[in-house]
């Protein structure tokens, strides 16, 4: 590890942190409308450093030309070394030494930056997207009174996210897991004077607590089981894992389940998905950055990172796949009928995250397929970040020009008025729908391939169902994406009155990020078929050895047909014969209402969780008011009661006090006499 590499590693989280500090301290007073400058500069630095890390540092630390057996040998050598910083071999990735953060008994937690292939990919994606979003936001948020606050929080978020990705142990990961949650809370509630935003921020925070509880419990269990929380010791030590799994068969599945509960909270998986659609109350750049591209994928990252543990718990992996499929299907169904453009995107995000978890669960098919399945999940995460950020930013651009109106029924035919927004949105929508040769096509195809491979394993029937759900969800995705597209950009030109007379397209600060992201949405998928992604990704330590896998031409044709079919149906229903949706709505009223009402999850949770807790809280409040306060008040009343008698002595007449003093003096004299008498 050269000093230069250390510096680059530290710059990635350090620059955003410095920017956050500068903006937070000086923003209000000096920077004002220039508050985005430190943020954008820091993110550019971080992005540059991430690219250097991605292309230079991490690859040079890989052992080139090793066969998989030799790799296992290398793993063994590492695993039997003590977990001292000096002897961590550089082959597995880059580590920047930090400092010891906690030293309790046998537990030593360090703050280190640990970069390997998966982390480098994540970092490049996170910093790249956040750079573009920050530039976009400098135009989008212009004139907002909280402008400096926004950029301070965004910088802080990028710092926390980078630290999360660069964590070398579970405690650090948990700490920054919470930090990104905090930033998410701050940014969802950015317009905290709006009651809906404040409520949404609170909801996101509370729902995330449930997941975080699972995560921290899992981390405790890891510490108890492995005696360490260091990735190096816990994850990259196959023999230790094997031994523990033999001695305590139930422990590792429990750990995996708890970690997955954490991931469910952060990545909005059923049934903890309810916070994400509400989080759209935040500013749109925040939705694009945190609630589409980066933070919500932290759960996927966690599960992918913990693959060595999950490989020991195939049942948990099946559970992961099942939850992913449920989430994907339900949220796709909800997205079908929503009229709020951002909300459609939010449910789409939840659905795509479900896809990623399906792929992660497909690793249960067997060690042979695991590498491909996890690669597929991370690849989808990678491409999804670009096109979903693009879609959100384009929605934000629509909102910007429509005077913050987001209901699709109130505007239509915007393609002539907002040409840049229209074209970039179209790129994103095509990528999301899985139009052939665009980003989403390749990654979704990989996921379907991974699931198809699962069908040949011992869990074949299960994976057949999951595969069917995935195909159905892909069809629904293409449909609702283009439903939103057609409703927004086609049809007769119609503006809401809030937009004013001349809606204007995105200003340059917003247009250029859109264009760049559109190019990514079209082009970034080609790293998949060219084996660039998988070739890089398989260097990630701890993954099972990769297998050769060819093109699944049949699957590709299938998914292309699915995408085109969904788009065609959307075209047919919303452009050619717009009366069909209305007919369907009246024909299938209960189902329609179910979708429109978001499957009534909020109402169900209110009834079964919130109401009992409220009842308990009311009882506690009554207990507090009448019993606890009664006890405390009676202590307060006691002196008053006891003083009823002595207060009669308090007559206010000075000689009375003097008489008291005199009597006390007599008492003193008697005491002195007793002293003399005693001698």
């Amino acid at each position: 590890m050269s000093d230069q590499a250390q510096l680059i590693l530290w710059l990635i989280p350090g620059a955003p942190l410095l920017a956050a500090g500068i903006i937070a301290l000086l923003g209000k007073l000096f920077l004002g409308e220039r508050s985005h400058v430190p943020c954008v500069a820091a993110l550019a630095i971080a992005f540059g450093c991430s690219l250097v890390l991605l292309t230079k540092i991490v690859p040079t630390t890989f052992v080139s030309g090793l066969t998989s057996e030799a790799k296992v040998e290398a793993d063994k050598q590492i695993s039997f070394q003590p977990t001292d910083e000096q002897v961590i071999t550089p082959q597995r990735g880059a580590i920047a030494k930090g400092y010891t953060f906690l030293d309790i008994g046998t537990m030593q937690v360090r703050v280190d930056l640990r970069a390997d292939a998966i982390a480098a990919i994540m970092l490049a994606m996170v910093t790249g997207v956040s750079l573009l979003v920050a530039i976009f936001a400098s135009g989008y948020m212009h004139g907002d009174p909280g402008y400096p606050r926004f950029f301070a929080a965004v910088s802080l978020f990028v710092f926390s996210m980078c630290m999360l990705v660069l964590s070398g142990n579970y405690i650090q990961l948990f700490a920054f897991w919470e930090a990104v949650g905090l930033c998410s809370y701050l940014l969802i509630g950015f317009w905290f004077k709006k009651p809906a935003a404040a409520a949404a921020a609170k909801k996101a925070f509370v729902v995330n607590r449930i997941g975080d509880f699972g995560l921290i419990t899992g981390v405790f269990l890891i510490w108890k089981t492995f005696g360490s929380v260091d990735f190096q010791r816990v994850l990259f030590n196959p023999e230790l894992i094997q031994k523990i799994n033999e001695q305590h068969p139930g422990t590792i599945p429990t750990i995996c389940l708890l970690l997955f509960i954490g991931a469910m909270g952060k990545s909005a998986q059923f049934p903890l998905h309810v916070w994400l659609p509400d989080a759209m109350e935040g500013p749109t750049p925040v939705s694009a950055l945190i609630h589409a591209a980066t933070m919500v994928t932290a759960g996927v990252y966690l599960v992918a990172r913990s693959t060595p543990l999950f490989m020991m718990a195939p049942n948990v992996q099946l559970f992961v796949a099942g939850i992913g499929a449920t989430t994907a299907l339900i949220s796709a169904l909800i997205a079908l009928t929503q009229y709020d453009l951002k909300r459609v995107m939010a449910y789409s995000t939840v659905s795509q995250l479900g896809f990623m978890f399906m792929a992660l669960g497909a690793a249960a098919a067997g060690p042979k397929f695991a590498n491909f399945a996890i690669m597929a999940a991370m690849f989808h995460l990678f491409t999804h970040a670009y096109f979903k950020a693009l879609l959100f930013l384009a929605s934000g651009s629509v909102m910007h020009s429509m005077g913050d109106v987001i209901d699709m029924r109130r505007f239509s035919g915007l393609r002539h008025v907002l040409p840049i927004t229209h074209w970039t949105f179209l790129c994103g929508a095509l990528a999301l729908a899985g139009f052939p040769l665009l980003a989403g096509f390749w990654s979704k195809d990989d996921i379907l391939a991974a699931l198809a491979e699962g069908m040949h394993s011992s869990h074949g029937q299960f994976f057949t169902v999951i595969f069917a759900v995935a195909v159905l969800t892909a069809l629904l995705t293409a449909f609702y994406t283009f439903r939103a597209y057609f409703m927004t950009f086609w049809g007769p030109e119609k503006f809401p009155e809030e937009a004013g007379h001349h809606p204007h397209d995105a200003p340059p600060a917003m247009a250029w990020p859109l264009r760049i992201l559109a190019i990514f949405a079209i082009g970034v998928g080609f790293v998949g078929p060219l084996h660039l992604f998988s070739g890089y990704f398989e260097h990630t330590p701890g993954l099972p050895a990769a297998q050769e896998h060819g093109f699944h031409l049949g699957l590709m044709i299938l998914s292309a047909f699915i995408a085109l079919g969904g788009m065609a149906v959307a075209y047919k229903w919303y452009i050619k014969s717009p009366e069909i949706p209305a007919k369907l709505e009246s024909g299938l009223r209960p189902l329609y209402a179910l979708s429109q009402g978001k499957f009534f999850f909020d109402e169900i949770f209110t009834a079964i969780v919130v109401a009992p807790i409220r009842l308990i809280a009311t009882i506690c409040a009554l207990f507090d008011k009448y019993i606890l306060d009664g006890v405390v008040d009676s202590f307060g009343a006691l002196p008053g009661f006891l003083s009823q008698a002595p207060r009669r002595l308090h007559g206010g007449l000075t000689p009375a006090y003097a008489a008291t003093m005199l009597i006390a003096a007599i008492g003193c004299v008697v005491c002195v006499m007793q002293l003399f008498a005693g001698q």
Partner: protein
Amino acid sequence: MNGSIQPTLLVSAALFALGAIGFLTRRNLISVILSAEMMLHGVALAMVTFGKMHGNNEGQIFTIFILTVAACEAGLALALILSLYHRTKSLDMDLWSALREDDMPSPVGHDSSAGATQPDTHPVQPTLTPAGLPIDPKTPLTPQRPNREETATHV
């Protein structure tokens, strides 16, 4: 009767006791203060006697300090008495029992307040004249913010 009392100590103790009686029973503020002074005399006499018994000057030095404090006390007490008298036009101590609890009855009989005015409900607190400012005979004792409208009506 083993030993015999120092006779001067007997006088000092008797002075102290008589002063205490006066302090407790008299109602005239001036008599009360005089009684307190007499108690101080008793103490001073005891101090001097003790000094003589020990054969050194310490008792007398103590007495000098007692004298100092007594002088201060007398000055302040007289100023207070005058200020109280200013308020009620009476030297009766029983009129002053504002320290008692609000809901308690007055500690003295109703006859005592006959012929004397009750203290003001809004007493004028004593203040020092700010240095360098001449006392304007028109201004009231408490410094008040000049009221422009009032001045205008006077003019």
